[in-house]
């Protein structure tokens, strides 16, 4: 109840539709020339002082990428991307890796402060209950600038650091798991990412450990004409648990920028990963100029029996979203969940959904997708639920609801269902509704303004999914949704 009120207040406080995080940070950057060649790949790898096998892996990916073509099956339209017109590496200039926050460029710290991301442990510690603390890995363009609470997490045996650091400190773990969920050749963008990924987060939760705090990564694209290619790898050993959240923003720029990330999750027997995303990349202006192309491959592998992976995403940003966080339900009795809210306004295009691949016996999955389209946007849910021959008694429940605001937007639902076992039970429900004039009038008759009424109705629509987010982020997400829909009624 308080959250709803907060949303309403938030909407009231803002008089025009505005992207809050569009500021640009002025930092001296180090970047190689634009364009992508083997030399670029070698440069990135050398810059990060990577082991030889990592460079070979990247080069192999690069060679394969050159033979591939961009996928065109998604319901999104954009001019051809010139991959030679992008910077593949952009790092704030500093002498070696910063050892403490004091060595980080104050302009960058200021940027995170403006974004409301706490990076100083002392400040976080003051007045916050230990169970509500969040450890943050802050990725600025191509590099991780700081990871908080590393020492404290290490006491519990948890490794939380940038993937660059992981390659230095735990190369054996990275080598064992990287590319095992999303293979190098999985798809065009994943292969590109494998060649040129620059940073991202690495999480390792040892056997039987329940991670003592929420982990989060905050991605910021700042530099012009720069692609962000981050790579995240999370491994939860037997009986462990971790909740992880990522947030993303970018400055308001007229050019489109590419973000092609890969996220791999692995759960062993009885382990659980809860992965939440609040994606708020710059969506472009009302006429569709600028904005981020968010072409992301996220996949979790429930490798162990009775393991669980849960994806929750709140997608409000990006000019184009092409993203299908998926679960491979390999272990018997494993469970995959996908909860999604995708909001599109203006000229945004969203093609998002999930894949639930049932391989093991008695595997279960649940998909709850809420699409909200406003303005002249197009919002597509695309999902695959499949059961392998051996996936006896596999069960899936899918619910896809679309809400339309106004009459110039579109909502599309494209579910694919494949079952090779007769014992599988797949349920699919889908609805499309429109915020009706009658509903708005009813709420307004009771005293709510048009914006408040819309916010209330939309919050009701997405409630099931918001409940899946960690509490503090649920409030944040609720505000974000209302702001994204600013100006969509009236």
């Amino acid at each position, binding site marked *: *109840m308080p959250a*709803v*009120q907060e949303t*309403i207040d938030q909407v009231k406080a803002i008089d025009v539709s505005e992207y809050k995080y569009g500021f640009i940070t002025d930092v001296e950057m180090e970047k190689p020339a634009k364009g992508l060649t083997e030399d670029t790949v070698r440069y990135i790898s050398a810059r990060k002082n990577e082991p030889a096998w990592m460079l070979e892996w990247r080069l192999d990916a690069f060679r394969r990428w050159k033979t591939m073509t961009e996928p065109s099956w998604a319901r999104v339209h954009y001019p051809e991307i010139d991959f030679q017109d992008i910077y593949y590496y952009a790092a704030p200039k500093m002498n070696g890796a910063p050892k403490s926050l004091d060595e980080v460029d104050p302009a960058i710290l200021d940027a995170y402060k403006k974004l409301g991301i706490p990076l100083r442990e002392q400040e976080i510690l003051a007045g916050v209950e230990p169970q509500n603390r969040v450890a943050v890995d802050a990725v600025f363009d191509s590099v991780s600038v700081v990871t908080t609470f590393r020492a404290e997490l290490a006491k519990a045996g948890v490794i939380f650091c940038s993937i660059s650091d992981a390659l230095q400190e735990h190369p054996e773990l990275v080598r064992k798991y990287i590319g095992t969920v999303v293979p190098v050749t999985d798809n065009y963008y994943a292969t590109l990412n494998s060649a040129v990924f620059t940073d991202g987060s690495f999480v390792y939760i040892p056997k039987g450990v329940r991670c003592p705090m929420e982990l989060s990564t905050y991605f910021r694209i700042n530099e012009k004409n720069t692609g962000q290619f981050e790579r995240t790898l999370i491994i939860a050993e037997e009986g462990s648990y971790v909740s992880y959240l990522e947030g993303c923003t970018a400055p308001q720029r007229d050019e489109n920028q590419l973000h092609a990330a890969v996220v791999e999750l692995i759960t062993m027997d009885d382990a659980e990963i809860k992965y939440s995303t609040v994606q708020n990349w710059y969506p472009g202006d009302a006429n569709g100029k600028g904005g981020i192309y968010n072409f992301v491959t996220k996949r979790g592998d429930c490798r162990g029996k009775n393991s669980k992976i849960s994806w929750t995403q709140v997608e409000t940003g990006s000019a184009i979203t092409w993203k299908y966080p998926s679960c491979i339900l390999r272990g018997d009795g494993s469970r995959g969940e996908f909860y999604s809210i995708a909001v599109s306004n203006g000229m945004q295009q969203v093609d998002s959904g999930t894949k639930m691949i049932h391989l093991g016996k008695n595997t279960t999955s649940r998909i709850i997708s809420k699409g909200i389209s406003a303005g002249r946007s197009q919002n597509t849910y695309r999902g695959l639920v499949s059961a392998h021959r051996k996936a006896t008694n596999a069960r899936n429940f899918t619910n896809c609801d679309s809400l339309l605001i106004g009459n110039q937007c579109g909502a599309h639902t494209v579910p694919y269902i494949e079952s090779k076992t007769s014992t599988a039970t797949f349920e699919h429900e889908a609805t499309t509704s429109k915020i*009706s*004039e*009658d*509903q708005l*009038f*009813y*709420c*307004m*008759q*009771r*005293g*709510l*303004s*048009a914006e*408040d009424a819309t916010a*209330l*109705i939309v*919050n*009701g*629509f*997405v*409630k*099931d999914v918001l409940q899946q987010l960690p509490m503090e982020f649920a409030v944040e997400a609720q505000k974000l949704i209302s702001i994204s829909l600013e100006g969509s009624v009236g």
Partner: protein
Amino acid sequence: MLEIRNLHVKIADEDKVILNGLNLKVAKGEVAAIMGPNGSGKSTLSYVIAGKPDYEVTDGEVLLDGVNILEMAPDERAAAGLFLAFQYPMEIPGVATMTFLKAAMNAQRKQRGEAELTTPDFIKRVNKAADLLGIPKDMLRRPLNVGFSGGEKKRMEILQMTLLEPKMSIMDETDSGLDIDALKIVAEGVNARRDPEHAFLVITHYQRLLDYIKPDTVHVMSRGQIVKTGGAELALELEANGYRDYQSAA
């Protein structure tokens, strides 16, 4: 309290005229009933007073305490003390009734420059009003009107009226779809608010509701106009003779 002068209304984007020079006065403390055959424009009248956007006022005025409210948005009219109990209350999926009630009450208070209700004060008020109307607590936790029976929805309208404390309430066919017990509860909700400060406009097709809410005046509406005005006895006469005498009056 409420005064309507020479009101002409048509459906927006169409030529269909529904109200055709309607005049009506409801005084402070008065309970006025409007009766009329189907299609006489009764519901349209209630919607136009509340500000529904589907209609276009081509002429006339609607005054609430002397102020023309036709230029005001529906939420401004609500904050000014106008309430419409809907014939078909809307369902708002996912929004708990309590959440909705609090948002509405505070929105009106805010617009009037009053302080928001504290949560304990709000809950106290809701519980008191709900008990009075026989509304179980679990209904307040359910999404507003979703899966409610016709009677439950109407009772919820009365609950909202009670909590929002409007000075002018319009009941649009609140009796439709109600059994006698529900009808009595609804009537009690209205009667409980009858005092020299509040006014009601009760729109109904049948005399039945008026057995429980005794009107001070009865207006007969036909073809977009008030064609006859009288006391409570006029309702009984209509019940006996039907609307036949008034069908051609306009």
